[in-house]
Protein backbone atom coordinates (compact mmCIF):
# COMPACT_ATOMS: atom_id res chain seq x y z
CA UNK A 1 0.00 0.00 0.00
CA UNK A 2 1.50 3.29 -1.04
CA UNK A 3 0.58 6.27 1.08
CA UNK A 4 1.65 9.88 1.19
CA UNK A 5 3.90 8.81 4.06
CA UNK A 6 6.42 7.66 1.48
CA UNK A 7 6.90 11.26 0.43
CA UNK A 8 7.91 12.41 3.90
CA UNK A 9 11.55 12.91 4.64
CA UNK A 10 13.11 9.86 6.27
CA UNK A 11 14.17 11.90 9.28
CA UNK A 12 10.63 13.05 9.98
CA UNK A 13 9.61 9.42 9.76
CA UNK A 14 12.32 8.69 12.27
CA UNK A 15 10.78 11.01 14.85
CA UNK A 16 7.35 9.70 13.98
CA UNK A 17 8.55 6.16 14.69
CA UNK A 18 10.32 7.37 17.79
CA UNK A 19 7.18 8.97 19.21
CA UNK A 20 5.21 5.83 18.38
CA UNK A 21 7.54 3.94 20.70
CA UNK A 22 6.55 6.30 23.51
CA UNK A 23 2.82 5.56 23.29
CA UNK A 24 1.46 4.76 26.74
CA UNK A 25 4.16 6.72 28.54
CA UNK A 26 3.63 9.89 30.52
CA UNK A 27 4.90 13.00 28.72
CA UNK A 28 4.69 16.75 29.14
CA UNK A 29 3.90 18.74 26.01
CA UNK A 30 4.78 22.42 26.06
CA UNK A 31 2.98 24.51 23.45
CA UNK A 32 4.09 27.67 21.72
CA UNK A 33 1.53 29.61 23.75
CA UNK A 34 3.36 28.48 26.95
CA UNK A 35 0.60 26.10 27.97
CA UNK A 36 2.21 22.93 29.34
CA UNK A 37 0.17 19.75 29.53
CA UNK A 38 1.10 16.48 31.18
CA UNK A 39 -0.66 13.31 30.16
CA UNK A 40 -0.39 9.78 28.83
CA UNK A 41 0.62 9.66 25.17
CA UNK A 42 -2.30 7.98 23.41
CA UNK A 43 -1.14 8.31 19.82
CA UNK A 44 0.85 10.35 17.35
CA UNK A 45 0.61 10.75 13.58
CA UNK A 46 2.85 11.74 10.68
CA UNK A 47 2.34 15.46 11.35
CA UNK A 48 3.42 14.83 14.94
CA UNK A 49 -0.08 15.72 16.06
CA UNK A 50 -0.43 14.28 19.53
CA UNK A 51 -3.32 12.82 21.46
CA UNK A 52 -3.03 12.80 25.25
CA UNK A 53 -5.18 11.08 27.85
CA UNK A 54 -5.85 11.94 31.49
CA UNK A 55 -4.25 15.31 31.08
CA UNK A 56 -3.24 17.75 33.77
CA UNK A 57 -2.35 21.33 32.94
CA UNK A 58 0.88 22.29 34.69
CA UNK A 59 -0.35 25.75 35.72
CA UNK A 60 -4.03 24.91 36.27
CA UNK A 61 -5.00 28.18 38.00
CA UNK A 62 -3.98 30.16 34.96
CA UNK A 63 -6.08 28.05 32.59
CA UNK A 64 -9.43 27.39 34.32
CA UNK A 65 -11.13 26.45 31.04
CA UNK A 66 -8.95 23.32 30.84
CA UNK A 67 -10.40 21.90 34.06
CA UNK A 68 -12.96 19.61 32.43
CA UNK A 69 -10.74 18.40 29.60
CA UNK A 70 -9.46 14.88 30.17
CA UNK A 71 -8.43 13.80 26.67
CA UNK A 72 -7.13 16.12 24.01
CA UNK A 73 -5.71 16.42 20.52
CA UNK A 74 -2.78 18.79 20.02
CA UNK A 75 -1.89 20.05 16.56
CA UNK A 76 1.73 19.20 15.80
CA UNK A 77 2.49 22.68 14.48
CA UNK A 78 1.91 24.34 17.87
CA UNK A 79 4.18 22.08 19.92
CA UNK A 80 7.37 23.65 21.26
CA UNK A 81 8.76 20.82 23.41
CA UNK A 82 7.85 17.30 24.36
CA UNK A 83 9.38 16.37 27.69
CA UNK A 84 9.97 12.64 27.76
CA UNK A 85 10.18 10.20 30.65
CA UNK A 86 13.84 9.54 31.50
CA UNK A 87 13.46 5.80 30.90
CA UNK A 88 11.80 6.40 27.54
CA UNK A 89 14.82 8.03 26.00
CA UNK A 90 17.22 5.79 24.19
CA UNK A 91 19.44 8.34 22.53
CA UNK A 92 21.72 5.65 21.07
CA UNK A 93 18.98 4.17 18.90
CA UNK A 94 18.01 7.60 17.62
CA UNK A 95 21.65 8.47 17.09
CA UNK A 96 22.37 5.29 15.12
CA UNK A 97 19.26 5.61 13.00
CA UNK A 98 20.13 9.21 12.16
CA UNK A 99 23.66 8.24 11.03
CA UNK A 100 22.21 5.41 8.93
CA UNK A 101 19.76 7.79 7.23
CA UNK A 102 22.49 10.35 6.66
CA UNK A 103 24.62 7.74 4.92
CA UNK A 104 21.70 7.01 2.65
CA UNK A 105 20.16 3.91 4.15
Amino acid at each position, binding site marked *: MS*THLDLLSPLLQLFFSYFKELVGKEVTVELKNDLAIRGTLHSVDQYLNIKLENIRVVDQDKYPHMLSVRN*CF*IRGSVVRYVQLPPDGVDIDILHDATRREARGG
Partner: protein
Amino acid sequence: MSWSGPEDVLLSTSLASYLDKKLLVLLRDGRKLLGILRSFDQFANVVLEGACDRVIVGDLYCDIPLGLYVIRGENVVLIGELDLEREELPAHMICVSAAEIKRAQRAERDATDLKGSMRKRMEFLDLD
Protein backbone atom coordinates in the same frame (compact mmCIF):
# COMPACT_ATOMS: atom_id res chain seq x y z
CA MET B 1 -5.37 9.83 9.11
CA SER B 2 -6.79 6.81 7.43
CA TRP B 3 -10.20 5.23 7.74
CA SER B 4 -9.20 1.61 8.18
CA GLY B 5 -11.97 0.51 10.46
CA PRO B 6 -14.04 1.40 13.49
CA GLU B 7 -11.66 -0.21 15.98
CA ASP B 8 -8.74 1.70 14.45
CA VAL B 9 -10.48 5.01 14.89
CA LEU B 10 -10.19 4.88 18.66
CA LEU B 11 -6.49 4.12 18.50
CA SER B 12 -5.53 6.60 15.81
CA THR B 13 -4.64 10.24 16.17
CA SER B 14 -7.54 11.27 13.96
CA LEU B 15 -10.37 13.33 15.36
CA ALA B 16 -12.89 10.64 14.43
CA SER B 17 -13.26 9.54 18.05
CA TYR B 18 -14.34 13.11 18.94
CA LEU B 19 -17.12 13.27 16.34
CA ASP B 20 -20.52 14.34 17.72
CA LYS B 21 -18.96 15.13 21.09
CA LYS B 22 -18.85 18.46 22.87
CA LEU B 23 -15.36 19.88 22.54
CA LEU B 24 -13.25 22.79 23.61
CA VAL B 25 -11.19 24.19 20.75
CA LEU B 26 -8.31 26.45 21.72
CA LEU B 27 -7.25 28.85 18.96
CA ARG B 28 -3.94 30.54 18.32
CA ASP B 29 -5.34 33.95 19.25
CA GLY B 30 -6.27 32.57 22.68
CA ARG B 31 -9.98 32.20 22.00
CA LYS B 32 -11.80 29.22 23.45
CA LEU B 33 -14.64 27.87 21.33
CA LEU B 34 -17.05 25.22 22.55
CA GLY B 35 -19.26 23.17 20.27
CA ILE B 36 -20.11 19.79 18.87
CA LEU B 37 -17.65 18.38 16.32
CA ARG B 38 -19.48 17.50 13.11
CA SER B 39 -16.64 17.25 10.60
CA PHE B 40 -12.87 17.51 10.25
CA ASP B 41 -10.00 16.74 7.87
CA GLN B 42 -6.28 15.98 7.94
CA PHE B 43 -5.37 19.64 8.51
CA ALA B 44 -7.56 19.80 11.62
CA ASN B 45 -10.00 22.04 9.80
CA VAL B 46 -13.11 21.48 11.89
CA VAL B 47 -16.83 22.15 11.78
CA LEU B 48 -18.40 23.00 15.12
CA GLU B 49 -22.15 22.99 15.54
CA GLY B 50 -23.71 25.23 18.18
CA ALA B 51 -20.37 26.92 18.71
CA CYS B 52 -19.90 29.53 21.40
CA ASP B 53 -16.97 31.65 22.45
CA ARG B 54 -16.11 31.31 26.15
CA VAL B 55 -14.76 34.63 27.35
CA ILE B 56 -13.00 34.52 30.71
CA VAL B 57 -11.94 37.65 32.58
CA GLY B 58 -10.64 36.97 36.07
CA ASP B 59 -13.38 35.06 37.87
CA LEU B 60 -16.09 36.07 35.40
CA TYR B 61 -17.05 34.16 32.29
CA CYS B 62 -19.60 34.28 29.50
CA ASP B 63 -20.48 31.97 26.61
CA ILE B 64 -21.25 34.06 23.55
CA PRO B 65 -23.26 32.02 21.02
CA LEU B 66 -21.86 31.95 17.49
CA GLY B 67 -23.74 29.24 15.61
CA LEU B 68 -22.22 26.90 13.03
CA TYR B 69 -18.49 27.51 12.64
CA VAL B 70 -15.87 26.22 10.23
CA ILE B 71 -12.42 26.72 11.73
CA ARG B 72 -9.36 26.70 9.51
CA GLY B 73 -6.89 24.15 10.83
CA GLU B 74 -3.87 26.43 11.07
CA ASN B 75 -5.61 28.38 13.85
CA VAL B 76 -6.20 25.34 16.01
CA VAL B 77 -3.93 24.82 18.99
CA LEU B 78 -5.72 22.11 20.91
CA ILE B 79 -8.97 20.20 20.78
CA GLY B 80 -10.15 18.91 24.13
CA GLU B 81 -12.89 16.45 24.85
CA LEU B 82 -15.11 17.86 27.61
CA ASP B 83 -15.60 15.40 30.43
CA LEU B 84 -19.27 15.76 31.28
CA GLU B 85 -18.72 14.36 34.78
CA ARG B 86 -16.36 17.12 35.74
CA GLU B 87 -17.29 20.70 36.43
CA GLU B 88 -16.62 22.79 33.34
CA LEU B 89 -15.10 25.60 35.37
CA PRO B 90 -13.97 26.06 38.98
CA ALA B 91 -16.94 26.62 41.33
CA HIS B 92 -15.92 30.15 42.28
CA MET B 93 -16.31 31.43 38.71
CA ILE B 94 -19.39 33.51 37.96
CA CYS B 95 -21.43 33.48 34.75
CA VAL B 96 -22.25 37.01 33.60
CA SER B 97 -24.01 38.59 30.64
CA ALA B 98 -22.32 39.42 27.33
CA ALA B 99 -22.50 43.14 28.11
CA GLU B 100 -20.88 42.63 31.48
CA ILE B 101 -18.04 40.49 30.14
CA LYS B 102 -17.37 43.08 27.43
CA ARG B 103 -17.11 45.73 30.12
CA ALA B 104 -14.74 43.55 32.16
CA GLN B 105 -12.65 42.86 29.05
CA ARG B 106 -12.36 46.57 28.32
CA ALA B 107 -11.39 47.32 31.93
CA GLU B 108 -8.71 44.63 31.78
CA ARG B 109 -7.39 45.95 28.48
CA ASP B 110 -7.29 49.50 29.79
CA ALA B 111 -5.40 48.33 32.87
CA THR B 112 -2.71 46.58 30.79
CA ASP B 113 -2.49 49.58 28.45
CA LEU B 114 -1.99 51.84 31.45
CA LYS B 115 0.70 49.54 32.83
CA GLY B 116 2.44 49.58 29.44
CA SER B 117 2.38 53.36 29.12
CA MET B 118 3.59 53.80 32.73
CA ARG B 119 6.50 51.50 32.02
CA LYS B 120 7.30 53.42 28.86
CA ARG B 121 7.28 56.69 30.73
CA MET B 122 9.63 55.26 33.36
CA GLU B 123 12.03 53.82 30.83
CA PHE B 124 14.44 56.79 31.10
CA LEU B 125 15.14 55.67 34.69
CA ASP B 126 16.80 52.55 33.30
CA LEU B 127 15.66 50.41 36.19
CA ASP B 128 17.14 47.14 35.01
